[in-house]
Structures are given as structure tokens and as C-alpha cells.
């Protein structure tokens, strides 16, 4: 049983820690872009909420409880990245947003529902019997992979802050953060918008 659990954890981990998973990685970068190093708990909470969201869709789709139009889902995945980037740019005071501190984990979980549907089709076909343990292991692996991606994203964001401070040394810390959010969100949004256009199902 442990070897089965560990095998499917590896499958989930490798699925995310992989350059072919760039849509997933950019989504995580967009989610993390607004946080400072001291906000790491909030970032982890948002990423975990995202995992919970895609675990739910994955379980529903793999067990056959829900059938999803895969072309539409593949289009919606980059759309969620664009939406996250727009949220990063537009919303400046999240403390007063609806749902308060729970607002960002909630929307990460909702977008997670879409991302989980993206690979549910592959798993449903493969695991026609005994799906509980493989599915659990796969989701744990995805979560561990996301934590690794989040750690790389944190290093990248710190480097971006240093580069901004080097270029404009007079900027105060809040302005540096704002500029970082604007730059990263805009670039990620443009790339994801291109993918959305390419995957347009209509």
C-alpha cells in the first residue's frame, strides 16, 4: 500500500515540477505575486485552497460523477490565469474585499476546480478500479510539487524586488511591491491571454 501511495505521489509531484506544466506554474506565480516574504503563510494557504479545489473536481470527474467538456476546460485554465492577474492589478485593499481574509483562498479554490478538471480526463481513463489511494497520493504529490514551485516563485519575486530597488533606489517598499505586482501580473497575463486565444474552443 505504501509503495502504491508513494508511486502516485511521485506522479503528482512530477506532473507539476515540470516545465511542460508552465500554465500551472504561471498560475502559481500569479497567485504568489502579491505577497511579501513575511506573508508566506497566506501564500501557502492560498495554494492549499487551490489544491483542495482541484482535488474536488478531480475526484468528481474520475469517479464519473461529473463529465466535463475538456476543450472548454483547456480554454478556461489560461482564462483563470488572466483573471488572477487582473485581480492582482485591480484590487489594492484585500482587507476590505468581500469575505475579508478568506476572499483570496476562496477564489483560488474556485479556480482550482477548473484546473483539476484539466487532467481528470487522463486519470479517469487510466484508473478504472481502486481509485481512492492513487487519487489521494496524486493530490498529495501535486500539493508537494506546488510548495516547491512556490519556493522557487518566492526566490524569483525577491530577485524582482532587488532588481526594482537597484533600478529605482528611491522607491519605498510599498511602491516596490506594487511595481513588482504590476510587472509580473502584466507579463503573465499577456502570455496566458495568448494561450487562451490559441485554445479557443469556438
Amino acid at each position, binding site marked *: 500500500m505504501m509503495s502504491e501511495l508513494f*508511486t502516485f505521489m511521485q506522479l503528482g509531484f512530477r506532473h507539476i515540477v515540470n516545465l511542460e506544466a508552465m500554465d500551472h506554474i504561471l498560475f502559481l506565480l500569479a497567485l504568489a505575486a502579491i505577497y511579501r516574504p513575511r506573508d508566506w503563510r497566506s501564500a501557502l494557504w492560498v495554494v492549499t485552497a487551490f489544491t483542495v479545489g482541484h482535488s474536488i473536481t478531480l475526484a468528481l470527474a474520475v469517479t464519473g460523477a461529473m463529465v466535463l467538456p475538456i476543450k472548454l476546460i483547456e480554454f478556461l485554465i489560461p482564462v483563470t490565469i488572466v483573471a488572477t492577474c487582473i485581480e492582482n492589478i485591480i484590487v489594492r485593499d484585500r482587507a476590505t474585499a468581500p469575505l475579508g481574509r478568506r476572499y483570496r483562498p476562496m477564489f483560488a479554490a474556485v479556480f482550482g476546480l477548473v484546473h483539476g478538471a484539466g*487532467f481528470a480526463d487522463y486519470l479517469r481513463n487510466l484508473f478504472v478500479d481502486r481509485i481512492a489511494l492513487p487519487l489521494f497520493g496524486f493530490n498529495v504529490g501535486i500539493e508537494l510539487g506546488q510548495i516547491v514551485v512556490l519556493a522557487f516563485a518566492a526566490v524569483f519575486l525577491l530577485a524582482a524586488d532587488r532588481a526594482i530597488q537597484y533600478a529605482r533606489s528611491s522607491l519605498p517598499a510599498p511602491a516596490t511591491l506594487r511595481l513588482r505586482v504590476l510587472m509580473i501580473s502584466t507579463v503573465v497575463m499577456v*502570455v496566458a491571454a*495568448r494561450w487562451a486565444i490559441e485554445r479557443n474552443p469556438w
Partner: protein
Amino acid sequence: MKLASVTRVASLPIALVVIAATARSLDAHPLHTSLAEIVYDPAAKEIRISIRVFIDDLKKASTAYARAHKSSPQTMFIDYARSSFIVADRSGHPLGLASCGSKPVGDLMWLCLRAPAPAGIAGLQVAHRVLFDLYADQINIVQASYNGKRSSVLFTRGDGLKKL
């Protein structure tokens, strides 16, 4: 407006267009995985292997294999599976795998292979290399059931034989 200001205002949209144009196209991120199950038939004293492969991928890989090895269209799926799924005994000698048929199930093809194994599954070594020639990120899993236990082994490109 001064030239420097015009340049600054124009540089952002130009940069974004360049980023959009040069960004790599990205297909949806598929899960390139094939699952194989091995069970032991004590009456026949043989192992039976069921390999699940997406039909589209199997067609691509086995067509290339058939072209290179002059395999016939009727047997190319099984011929390809026999070339890329290896079972070896404790000392590393490959077992001869025979076909026990194939059937489409949804988007998958289930390929059946069998081999005599008088000593059972314990100690056997396997390598599941199906579709490694097609995708660099292919990950294959072998699951074996024997003596009431289940064992799973994961394979990525470059992996050799692994003990069950």
C-alpha cells in the same frame, strides 16, 4: 510631448506585444502516463500483464516502430508493447512475452501480454518503457498483485529494470 516621454509611453505596449508574440505556444498540459498491471495465474503458473495506453499515442509510437522493424499493421500494437515492456527473472534474463490479445476501452487500448513464471511474481524485474520514445515527460507505472500484497513501481525515461 518630448521624445523621451513618447518613447516611455510607447515602450510598454510594444514590450507586451513582443512578449505575446514570442511566448511559447502551450498545449494543454496532458498527463503522459501509462499504467500496467501484473497478476499471477497460479493454475497456469504464468503472469498476465495488462498495459493501458491512450490509443492516439499508441498508434503514433507503434506506427513508427512498425516502419523501423517491418511489423505488420495487424500486430504492430502488440509488437511495440513487447519491445518496450520487459520482464526479467531474478538473474536479469528477459522472459519471452506472448500476446494474449488487446481491446479498446474508451480512449485506451488494453494490451495483454503473458509469460511463464513458475516461481510467481516475487523477485521479478520489470521495465515499462512504452511511449518513452514519444514523450520526454512520459511517466509509467507498474502495479503488481501477489500473495495478497500490491506493489507499485514508477518509470521515467532512462530507467532500467526495477524489482517488483
